């Protein structure tokens, strides 16, 4: 007998485990159903046959007696079977040892939990990994959820035959062996398993979370079948529980009883989160006086989660004595305010409602939006506090008010009287682990509806993506939204198993940020980014290298997620390609040049500039920058002439580049972590021109140029240091200009090509554009104007006259016009 077998046999659970393996609960359930229906059918058969034989048989009593005897015999056999199966079910439940609540029906100690036993029973040759990979009921479910394919697990299993002395699983020091003990042991002692997980990007923590999820799922189902336990019976409300309490006629119109909410009625074994806030609310509402709470949090469901958890405790009768039997009514402020016509109406109705709540004696009044009520009162020139003060001071009722964080700060915190009547409970944002926990449980519901399966890496990615890529709102809400959005999308695309890549694909599609694993084509593109970009950006090698590196860092997933995607300061003369580089970046990284947003910072030079960017409470205006980033949370933001803006605005960007967010005038966070910032500046241009005219290469004097910019106070050193890199844009040489002119002309040729016409570009034409269009102060920019005024003008004239049509080629010859200047003469072939 192997060690594992002898360990298994030491427990009372063993026969139940064997029973489960031999004759599973599912099969027993089926037999119970069939025997029950057959037993019901037997009397019907007897009655029908008596009626039938009385008409047809010559000896009805004889044939009836025979049939009745046989039917009674059959009923007895079926009855015996039925009772036997029911008894086995009872035995199974009595023996079932839950991991999540760590007890069975008797609460006695066991050697291992039922789920752990299911894996251990499949162990061959004391090799624990075989147990995990062979147990259909739990082990393989864990493997599936980890995103490991059945082929991979089969290969791993076949390797185990070669292992002669498997690592020894010592159970002596483990008081109760749980599935997590087994999987941790396997992870630490079977390198093949560990390597496989590592290849999937998973570690011990992920394994533990997956195990907890799978075990929860199995145990939750079993637990829900046990209707006879004390906690389940306690949830059925008593018939006379409200006979001694008053009625709340008006309050009922504007409220709902939370005990009927589906969140309160779910049978989940335990509360998943927000236990700290729940304990605080419960202890405050239990007080004999001043039992009023104001629950403050971000807009979203998180405040309600605390309330639902409290209601569940009330319903389960596990809340404190004072709260058991109470009726939590959620006062729906919007429903109330929409029916109010005038000041008197507001005051009278509100007093009646609070009177009813107080005199009923069993109501916990929960106001879903206290700030809204305060604002409504203000509109009627009333002070809400003065109306509800007697009720807040009463020792006989409990009032819980919910408020969004920003309104709490602006409307309630400053009101000393109101604050003295309420205890404040702040809901903390959930940690990633807690969000994952919520999503894993939520996913079980979604999986049932859409008939899909989520792997753990997918769940983890949903939780992370909700945090990083969707900046507004509560993370747990966003993650739940993402989960419910991905599911129908997966069904539409024929995806049954959702892994990390599928989630990244979806999020990538939604945000335009490339995220899924890098394909072969994209790999080539990423490795040759410099060449690709240099086809478009002429001469600025350093800039091309810097942004190529930033793109690769982001794509490889090694960027700092608490900062923007990238931040660059481009400085140097006008017209040398700074804006073009930003456009190229938007196109290469986000796939669309249009995702380039632009702010001309020279327009933000005065003291009002900051208010225009982040909004102002005084004038009740929204900020240009905050709106821009809320509407387009992903993209490239070009800040032209950055150095010209007000110092207050520079400080704002100092924070944005450092932290990846800022707060607008209303105290709301605006995230900028998915934005690539490019600030351009003409600072140092004069010095660069000086160097060029002296025949020196500005690149060699970069440090001096930057020192000069700092010295003359154009940009502060701490701001310069915040950028990922500050890049000097070189003035363009004649060769560079020829290349740029050629690129510009090719663009015109492309437009013509779409109409079936050909533009012939030769050296003569390029030289004409370079010589006529270059200007030291404005760089290559005037060349564009020259092309418009000459090449495009001629083409337009010819097209309108009908001289240039599809299939024809146009070329230009440089001539000297009447005023002695060079000009172009078109020729159509």
């Amino acid at each position, binding site marked *: 007998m192997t060690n594992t077998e002898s360990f298994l046999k030491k427990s*009372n659970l*063993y*026969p*139940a485990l*064997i*029973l489960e393996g*031999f004759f599973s609960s599912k099969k027993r359930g089926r037999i119970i159903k069939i025997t029950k229906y057959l037993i019901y059918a037997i009397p019907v058969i007897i009655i029908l046959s008596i009626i039938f034989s009385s008409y047809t048989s010559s000896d009805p009593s004889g044939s009836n007696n025979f049939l009745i*005897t*046989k039917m*009674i*015999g*059959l*009923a*007895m*056999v*079926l*009855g*015996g*079977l039925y*009772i*036997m199966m029911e*008894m*086995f079910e*009872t*035995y199974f439940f*009595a*023996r079932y040892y839950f991991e999540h609540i760590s007890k069975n*029906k*008797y609460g006695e100690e066991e050697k291992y939990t039922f789920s752990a036993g299911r894996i251990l029973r499949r162990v061959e040759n004391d090799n624990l990994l075989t147990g995990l990979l062979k147990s259909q009921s739990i082990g393989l479910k864990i493997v599936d959820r980890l995103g490991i394919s059945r082929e991979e697990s089969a290969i791993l299993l076949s390797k185990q035959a070669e292992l002669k002395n498997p690592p020894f699983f010592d159970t002596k020091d483990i008081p109760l062996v749980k599935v997590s003990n087994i999987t941790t042991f396997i992870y630490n002692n079977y390198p093949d398993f560990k390597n496989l997980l590592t290849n999937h990007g998973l570690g011990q923590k992920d394994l533990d979370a997956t195990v907890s999820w799978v075990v929860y799922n199995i145990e939750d189902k079993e637990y829900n079948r046990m209707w*006879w*336990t*004390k906690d389940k*019976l*306690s949830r*059925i409300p*008593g*018939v*006379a*529980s*409200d*006979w*001694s*309490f*008053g*009625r709340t006629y008006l309050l009922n119109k504007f409220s709902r009883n939370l005990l009927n909410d589906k969140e309160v009625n779910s049978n989940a074994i335990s509360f998943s989160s927000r236990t700290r806030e729940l304990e605080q609310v419960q202890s405050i509402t239990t007080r004999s006086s001043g039992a009023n709470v104001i629950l403050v949090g971000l807009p979203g469901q998180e405040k309600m989660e605390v309330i639902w958890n409290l209601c569940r405790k009330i319903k389960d009768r596990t809340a404190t004595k004072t709260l058991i*039997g109470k009726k939590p009514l959620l006062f729906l402020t919007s429903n109330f305010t929409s029916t109010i016509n005038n000041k008197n109406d507001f005051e009278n109705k509100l007093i009646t409602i609070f009177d009813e709540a107080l*005199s*009923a*004696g069993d109501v916990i009044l929960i106001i879903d939006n206290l700030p809204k009520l305060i604002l409504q009162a203000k509109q009627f020139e009333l002070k809400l506090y003065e109306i509800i003060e007697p009720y807040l001071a009463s020792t006989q009722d409990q009032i819980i008010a919910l408020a969004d964080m920003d309104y709490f700060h602006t409307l309630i915190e400053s009101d000393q009287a109101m604050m003295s009547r309420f205890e404040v409970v702040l809901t903390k944002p959930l940690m990633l682990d807690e969000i994952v926990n919520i999503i894993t449980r939520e996913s079980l519901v979604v999986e049932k509806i859409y008939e899909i399966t989520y792997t753990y890496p997918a769940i983890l990615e949903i939780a992370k993506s909700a945090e990083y890529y969707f900046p507004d709102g509560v993370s747990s809400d966003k993650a739940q939204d993402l989960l419910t959005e991905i599911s129908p999308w997966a069904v539409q695309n024929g995806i049954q198993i959702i892994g990390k890549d599928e989630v990244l694909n979806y999020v990538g599609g939604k945000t335009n940020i490339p995220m899924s694993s890098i394909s072969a084509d994209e790999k080539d593109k990423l490795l040759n980014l410099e060449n690709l970009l240099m086809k478009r950006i002429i001469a600025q090698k350093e800039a091309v290298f810097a942004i190529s590196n930033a793109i690769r860092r982001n794509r490889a997933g090694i960027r700092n997620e608490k900062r923007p995607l990238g931040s660059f300061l481009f400085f140097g003369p006008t017209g040398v390609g700074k804006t073009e580089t930003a456009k190229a970046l938007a196109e290469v990284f986000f796939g669309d040049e249009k995702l380039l947003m632009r702010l001309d910072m020279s327009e933000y030079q005065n003291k009002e500039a900051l208010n225009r960017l982040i909004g102002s409470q005084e004038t009740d205006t929204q900020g240009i920058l905050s709106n821009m980033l809320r509407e387009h949370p992903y993209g490239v933001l070009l800040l032209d002439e950055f150095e010209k803006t007000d110092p207050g605005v520079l400080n704002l960007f100092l924070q944005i580049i450092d932290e990846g967010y800022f707060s607008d005038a209303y105290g709301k966070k605006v995230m900028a972590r998915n934005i690539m910032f490019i600030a351009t500046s003409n600072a140092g241009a004069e010095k660069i021109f000086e160097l060029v005219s002296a025949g020196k290469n500005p690149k060699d004097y970069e440090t001096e140029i930057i020192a000069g910019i700092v010295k003359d106070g154009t940009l502060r050193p701490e701001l310069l240091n915040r950028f990922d890199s500050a890049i000097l844009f070189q003035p363009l040489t004649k060769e560079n200009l020829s290349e740029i002119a050629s690129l510009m002309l090719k663009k015109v040729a492309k437009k013509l090509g779409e109409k079936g016409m050909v533009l012939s570009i030769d050296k003569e034409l390029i030289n004409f554009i370079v010589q006529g269009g270059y200007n030291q102060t404005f760089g290559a920019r005037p060349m564009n104007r020259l092309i418009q005024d000459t090449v495009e003008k001629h083409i337009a004239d010819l097209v309108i006259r009908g001289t240039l049509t599809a299939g024809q080629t146009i070329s230009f010859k440089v001539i000297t016009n009447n005023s002695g200047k060079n000009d172009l003469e078109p020729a159509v072939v």
Partner: protein
Amino acid sequence: MRIILIILGYLKWHYGQAIPALWNTWKNFLYFIYEYFSIKLLFKNFFDSWKRMTNNYPQSFNLKEYLFVFIANMITRAVGMIMRTFLIIVGLTCYILLALALPFALVTWLLLPFIIIALIGTGLFLLIK
């Protein structure tokens, strides 16, 4: 072999731990009946008015009005008492019946393996006969 192991394991439980477990489940049901009919609460608030439907006495003394409120309040109290008495009787009856059924359930439980054998045995005999 496995069947014998299961049967032995089962019988060990059936005549061992299952008996206190049966008693515990019974207690759960008794607790449920007690709570479902709110028996304690009904006794505690026995003289309370029906759903707190009371009228307030007039501020200034007015015998007619005073009497009217007094009678009205007495009526709601009487309604409350009648309803409570009725529910207490029903609840206590259920409670007592359930408590009395325990010995019967216990005996049935002890005989259950034999009942199963007897049912299947007799049933097969009747079918074959």
